[in-house]
């Protein structure tokens, strides 16, 4: 499995600078909408960089599998099973999300400091990042990414990246569905009930609960991917 993660790393590192730069530019533009508030800037940019980088990396890795003959070749050249391929990929994506979050955070702090120096806003506001709300935002980002990948990865493992392009938009389709009253109303009802139920709980417990649920979904998704990938004709 270490060999698989290493091969994935080789693919990622080739495009890392490109992906990070693109993510930082997108994140930077997103952050500029909150230029007067360094803490809000940092949160917006960190979450944006984390999202874009993670999704870039996922599609780069699955693309490398299907380009050439690597999806089949690795099973013939290395002493691995298909289960190992799935586990390694879920492992490296979890690491990618964490690393992207850290990279986004560091870069956004830098940007926030630079903007504060230029427009004279209060740098001390960055201290607000250590309040519970920003931590909740970061955790919610990580949790939502785990949830999105939990839907996307089984689709791509099953269909390959070419046929599984729909996986890229599958989670977005769910959001589009919320535009329909018939869907939105029950979802909001459930969300409202959930919010009322957990209102009495401390924010940290709620955040960890959300993260735990997302990680559980990610692990279940890994099992589903293992099943689907076992039957895929390579």
């Amino acid at each position, binding site marked *: 499995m270490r*060999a698989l993660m*290493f091969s994935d790393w080789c693919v990622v590192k080739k495009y890392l600078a490109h992906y990070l730069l693109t993510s930082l530019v997108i994140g930077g533009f997103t952050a500029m909408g909150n230029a007067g508030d360094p803490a809000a800037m940092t949160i917006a940019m960190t979450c944006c960089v984390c999202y874009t980088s993670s999704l870039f990396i996922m599609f780069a890795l699955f693309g490398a599998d299907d380009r*050439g003959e690597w999806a089949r*070749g690795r*099973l*013939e*050249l290395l002493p691995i099973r298909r289960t190992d391929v799935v586990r390694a990929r879920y492992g490296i994506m979890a690491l990618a999300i964490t690393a992207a979050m850290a990279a986004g955070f560091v870069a956004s702090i830098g940007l926030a400091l630079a903007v504060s120096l230029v427009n004279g806003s209060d740098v001390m506001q960055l201290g607000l990042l250590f309040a519970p709300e920003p931590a909740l935002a970061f955790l919610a980002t990580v949790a939502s990414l785990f949830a999105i990948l939990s839907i996307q990865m089984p689709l791509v493992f099953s269909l390959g990246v070419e046929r599984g392009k729909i996986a890229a938009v599958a989670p977005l389709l769910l959001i589009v569905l919320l535009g329909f009253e018939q869907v939105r109303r029950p979802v909001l009802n459930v969300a409202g009930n959930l919010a009322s139920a957990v209102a009495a709980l401390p924010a940290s417990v709620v955040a960890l609960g959300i993260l735990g649920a997302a990680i559980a979904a990610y692990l279940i998704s890994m099992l589903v991917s293992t099943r689907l990938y076992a039957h895929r004709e*390579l």
Partner: protein
Amino acid sequence: MADTSFSLRLIDVSKHFDGFDVSHVTLGVPHGCVVGLVGRNGAGKTTLMRMALGSLAPDSGRIERAAKLGAVSAVCPYPTEMTVPDVERMHRLAFPAFDRALFEKTCDALDLPLDRKRTVKELSRGMGMKLQLAAAVATGATCLVMDEPTAGLDPIVRDDVLDLLRRWMEPGDRSLLISSHITGDLERICDRIAIIDSGRMLLTCDIDEIESHMGVARLRTAELEEVLDGGRSWSGDGSARVLRGDLSWAILVDDRAAFAREYPDLVCDRATIDDVMTLLVKGEVR
């Protein structure tokens, strides 16, 4: 119970695809033996190799692997972003017994530069094949499964590769399953030949049997009728394999010496793998 005289054995394996089937194929690679797999494009060679290596599961039949397998495929499968040292490191992580010195020695012997910056994408087809071969040898594999390794290589590189394989086989406990369209390469290296067509095994025999015993007689129509009326089956399976050419007929002869004794006036040439394959695949059964 597995037959221990084989490094690799496919027993009665079948695999169904839309429009193509591999049906009840049995193929063994004995220890210390080089087995050449020949057949037309789409005959089922790669499917058999993939089943042997485990990347494709047969619908029925079984596969016995008594050796440590290494693979070399026609197309270098590593991610194009990896460099040559990356490939070496990945194998080192996957195989605890990976012999780095042997890898470097093999690369050197095959003139494959260990350039730190050169990516798989930048390697030529020949270099990609050499890289796979060097890695497979260094993993400590005792049976190599090579799918068209010499396809697209110039004659000098092909010679280098065949020499290396011959040297690799020298200890005597190693074996090799190799497919190729270049039957001249197979004649130089193989101990046994298996001919496959349309997913069915047509012939499996020692290469000596082809070179020393089998022949192709090129006959006029009257001569062919005389041979066919002679009552002896020259294909060894109760029938005769004949193929009409522009001016004559070719008939596959399983015993060249016996044919010469029986028809001293007719010419029967030594058969090549190409002759045998052509007559088995395209010839009529009489």
